[in-house]
């Protein structure tokens, strides 16, 4: 057996030491001081430790941009892929080996711009993945251009007269796409961030976390995302996160509020009963019961032959 037997995803696990997710030689991250990306890294390590995972069980697939560097600073199996293409790589890896805990991550340009098509379809198919989108409302690594989530009127070197476009509505897009868990958190709220990531990882389906990550270098006039409000903690908001219509209305308000300077975070939609894509596929016999990847290491596996298909050609 060439794989450590993979543990039951639903089983209760003892917490592991989250420091296992820090590389042996801790890299000096290339993120700027005060960058919200540090908050994602910390929350992810904490969430994985709390949930009892070991680095070998985790595959972290990232896109390109400051956010894509996450896989360089997080100890696990990693795939630092292409701008916008983390999701298709991540979902195939999950289908090939459902025993892996697969997390995909990228920025707002990565996920809502160039990778928008993959975002919609991965949500639609409800793959059992966690997708973290670092949303700083700006292109950071290319030095401050207007991004898909930049507010209308946002001025940058490439939009000198200000953006004439309404920004993407990430939460609404995820909901309409078909995501079965949608949340927004912020780097400035580490406790909530870690809890939301834990829920997202445990969720059996496509969990989308819009993670507000302040960019102190290129989005100086943008907020630090404080003060923030956790809508589940506040008495001002009362909606049922399992009700699609209520969730939709709430998301719309939350997206508008951000551009009025009000940072509303929390869980916005949860459909716990919607089967994941893997479960649907397995139920109709289109996905093997045991991880396909393990079959290649099984010396006793039977491999079908095309020769046995030839009757149709005789």
């Amino acid at each position, binding site marked *: 057996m060439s794989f450590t037997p993979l543990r039951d995803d639903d089983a209760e696990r003892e917490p592991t030491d989250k420091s296992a997710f820090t590389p*042996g030689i801790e890299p000096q991250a290339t993120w700027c001081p005060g960058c919200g990306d540090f908050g994602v890294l910390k929350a992810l390590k904490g969430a994985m430790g709390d949930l009892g995972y070991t680095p070998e069980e985790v595959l972290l697939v990232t896109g390109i941009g400051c956010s894509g560097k996450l896989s360089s600073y997080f100890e696990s199996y990693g795939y630092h*892929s292409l701008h916008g293409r983390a999701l*298709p*790589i991540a979902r*195939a890896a999950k289908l090939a080996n459902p025993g*892996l805990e697969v997390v995909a991550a990228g920025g707002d340009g990565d996920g809502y711009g160039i990778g928008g098509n993959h975002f919609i379809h991965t949500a639609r198919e409800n793959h059992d993945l966690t997708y973290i989108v670092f949303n700083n409302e700006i292109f950071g690594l290319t030095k401050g251009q207007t991004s898909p989530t930049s507010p209308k009127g946002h001025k940058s070197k490439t939009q000198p007269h200000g953006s004439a476009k309404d920004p993407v509505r990430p939460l609404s897009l995820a909901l309409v796409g078909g995501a079965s868990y949608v949340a927004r958190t912020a780097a400035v709220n580490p406790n909530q961030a870690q809890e939301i990531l834990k829920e997202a990882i445990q969720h059996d389906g496509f969990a989308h976390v819009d993670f507000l990550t302040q960019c102190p270098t290129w989005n100086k006039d943008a907020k630090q995302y404080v003060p923030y409000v956790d809508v589940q903690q506040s008495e001002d908001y009362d909606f049922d996160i399992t009700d699609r219509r209520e969730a939709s209305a709430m998301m719309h308000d939350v997206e508008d509020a951000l551009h009025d300077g009000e940072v509303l975070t929390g869980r916005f939609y949860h459909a716990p009963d919607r089967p994941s894509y893997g479960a649907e596929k397995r139920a109709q016999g289109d*996905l093997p019961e045991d991880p396909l990847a393990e079959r290649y290491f099984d010396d006793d596996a039977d491999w079908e032959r095309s020769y046995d298909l030839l009757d149709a050609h005789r």
Partner: protein
Amino acid sequence: MTGEIAWRIAGGSGDGIDSTSQNFAKALMRSGLHVFTHRHYPSRIRGGHTYVEVRADDEPVRARGDGFNFLLALGDSFARNPKEDAYYGNEQAKPLAENLDDLREGGVIVYDEGLLDPSVIDDFDERVAANDWHVYPMDLRGLAREEGREVMRNTAGVGATCALLDYPLDPIKELMGDRMGGDVYEANSHILDVARGRANDFDHTHDLRMPTGEHETDQVLVSGSNGIAYGAIDAGCRFVSGYPMTPWTEVFTLLSQHLPEMGGIAEQVEDEIAAAALALGASHAGVKALSGSSGGGFALMSEPLGLAEMTETPVVLVEATRAGPSTGMPTKTEQGDLEHVLYTSQGDSCRVVLAPGNQAEAYEQTRLAFEIAYDFHLPVVVVYDQKLSGELRNVDAAVFDREPSPDLGAALTEEELSEAAHHAAGTFERYQHDAASAAEGVSPRSIPGQAGGRFLASGNEHHPTGHISEDADNRVTQMDRRLRKLDAIRERLDDGDTNQVRHGAADATVGVLTYGSNQGTVHEAVDRLVADGHDVASLSVSDLMPFPATEVREFLDSVERCLVVEMNASGQFRGLVQRELGAYGDVLHSLLKYNGEPFEPHEIVEGVGGLDGGDPATAGTRYVPAGSD
């Protein structure tokens, strides 16, 4: 010509021309003949001139022939409105009108007089007389209506064909019996009998008869798409991802139907970027994976293709080319994507490209593609075309009687991983941990989930652990190691059975050089030339990258002049040969065809004649002598 029959069934798209021809071809194969089909169809679901040729002989048939000698012209049920004639011509008449130019002298015409009126065709009677055609008008539609249902007019046409060629109905009926239920079978069987009877009422003035033959071994009727899909299955491929596009759809469909039944996974996804990226994801996770597309879709795969090169993720991508640029002619064949598959994606390309020449090679080389991809950790592209994709040919079933090879190649077990070099930080040095295998450029990989194998795959240049690095020395080391794999692959290919096929005279002075699916047509042309006393030989190349420089150089050195035959307008293969060999500019002449149709043997014969000062070009080809652009 020999005693062959080249039967062309013509009608409208959506009229069942394709399935009727397949059944006919299979019946002929079952009764002992060798068969080869050629398909011509429009990019339309309903209507539009379509035909299929079935070429049958008692000897192996390697290609479509020069024209054909038996026309079964059925109506086009979905022909365009006559008001559109100015754009499209008279579609009603096309099944007859469009098929006369290639009909050989002495040929037979059976046309459905219920749907086709020869009086609208210019000089029809004069052409019939001048070419000694033998015409049998039959009301096939009326017959089908009276004796069964109108849709059975194709069956009526087959019945008439059998009568006129003195071919028994039994093999046709037997095949129908395999596929059809009781009532439907009975009705079709009856139509066959009636149509044969009516055709036999004519005085048969023609000489053509179906040849008779016998197969000594078990034969199967397969397309190039079958070869590729079956090669993938036997190589242990259990993951396919794709997006529909003609003609790649055929391989995609086959694998989507078979893989889930074999415990595999098939994914139809949102676009071709995702399709190729999924294949990478599955492969990274330890599964043998394939994706593919045709020209435009393959263009979208450029990004993941480059990522596979940089991250050394094994993957097999197939490219079924069709006439370009852009959407081009979706159902017509071309080899215009050669440079595209060799060089697309940023940076120096580090991939293998194979171009099988026929159905059996499609099977063998797809297996080989997986072997190379997983042993050497790079993308392997199998490039073929609309022609090979859909051509059916009888192949010895023994070709497929092989053991599967699901081996994952250069991947480590957990036991091996525990002994492999790790970085001081504890991370596995996925990219160059093993000095021994690094000589070939390959650094065996771990699979996510394995203990002790953690690493980062990155599209950025990286350190041996996979971590991003822009260090100049490391860059050169990694680049050199990756590219070294191509030399090692060339060596392995040179040590094994060659994928290049030499054919023809031993001491030839004239060469014909080609690649991919032209092989069979070139062989037929060379055989004719040799039989006529010419010293001609051909070399059909399948290894496009890494290029088989030694073999091609030997061949070119052995002849005085060489005709490079390819289906594109700019001589891309000739360009590749010159780029790789850096010489021969004054020896290589081009014969190009890019009208959407594959070569016919006579076109190559005439092209070779051009080397000796004859008129080399035919209506469908272009001749470019050496030294011109």
